[in-house]
């Protein structure tokens, strides 16, 4: 399999994602410059965190018009092609309309950078096959706009279709207002599309790959999708 990590001006987790995939998990991985439209050869594309185009106007609003994003639309419609948007990557997927909803400023008005617990709501996706349902992962967040919002109909559809993959919880998997760091609707930390090949999440799995960093739970997400790709 082959993975690609998109690099926009202002991406700053691209090298971490490369490290996670290539150095830690041994996946053949390349950087994809945002002007590159030829992305057919990849099986998994990661849209990394950072501040693409300075986060000007809205997070991800300008990045979604980059040349590579035109190809991403087509890429996402193909079988056995997977997209993982992390943090700013999630925001870009929302702006591009590849996932529903939008991000508001954190309810605390603060940039939050700390470990959080997220509970796996759906372990039947290609990105969560190695988890048990209800398994709690400890993965850091680092964002100012992670307050997920969508209208009621969209939320009901997300829930009905099992598209809510991760929710902010406590270490036992219990979800309530006290375990919600940023005000996200329904404590949403990550959602997937109906076809199950586009996952957007605010926590950074690439920062939770080795025990020296405080957690290895991020591996499960990468390892799940890698396993899925190799078996299909």
């Amino acid at each position, binding site marked *: 399999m082959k993975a690609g990590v998109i690099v926009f001006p202002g991406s700053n987790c691209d090298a971490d994602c490369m490290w996670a995939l290539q150095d830690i998990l041994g996946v053949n991985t390349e950087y994809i410059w945002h002007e590159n439209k030829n992305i057919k050869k990849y099986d998994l594309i990661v849209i990394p965190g950072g501040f693409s185009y300075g986060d000007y106007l809205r997070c991800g609003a300008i990045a979604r018009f980059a040349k590579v994003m035109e190809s991403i639309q087509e890429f996402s419609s193909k079988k056995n092609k997977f997209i993982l948007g992390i943090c700013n990557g999630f925001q870009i997927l929302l702006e591009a309309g590849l996932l529903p909803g*939008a991000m508001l400023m954190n*309810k605390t008005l603060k940039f939050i950078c700390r470990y959080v617990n997220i509970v796996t709501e759906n372990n039947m996706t290609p990105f969560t096959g190695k988890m048990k349902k209800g398994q709690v992962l400890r993965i850091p967040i680092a964002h100012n706009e992670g*307050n997920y919002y969508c209208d009621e109909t969209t939320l009901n559809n997300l829930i009905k279709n099992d598209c809510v993959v991760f929710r902010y919880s406590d270490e036992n998997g219990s979800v309530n207002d006290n375990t919600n760091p940023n005000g996200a609707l329904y404590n949403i930390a990550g959602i997937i599309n109906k076809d199950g090949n586009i996952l957007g999440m605010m926590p950074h799995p690439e920062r939770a790959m080795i025990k020296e960093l405080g957690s290895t739970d991020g591996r499960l997400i990468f390892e799940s999708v890698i396993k899925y790709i190799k078996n299909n």
Partner: protein
Amino acid sequence: MAHAKIIVTLKDGVLDPQGKTVKFALEKMGYKNIEDVRIGKYIEIEIKNNNREKLEKEIDEICDKLLANPNIEKYKFSIE
């Protein structure tokens, strides 16, 4: 040359943490009559186009495609 003045605000019902915080600060300052505060963006565009109808269509498209996110925001504009 025409000037478009665009105001982008959060839709009614969408939480505005900035607005809430400013409201709180104003109340602390003693302004007790504040009902609500909402914060948005003001954007000015200078654009070459003399056809009024086309111009309105173009600005509307610009707002829709880039300047506002229809999931959370609404916009209005005037052209001078």
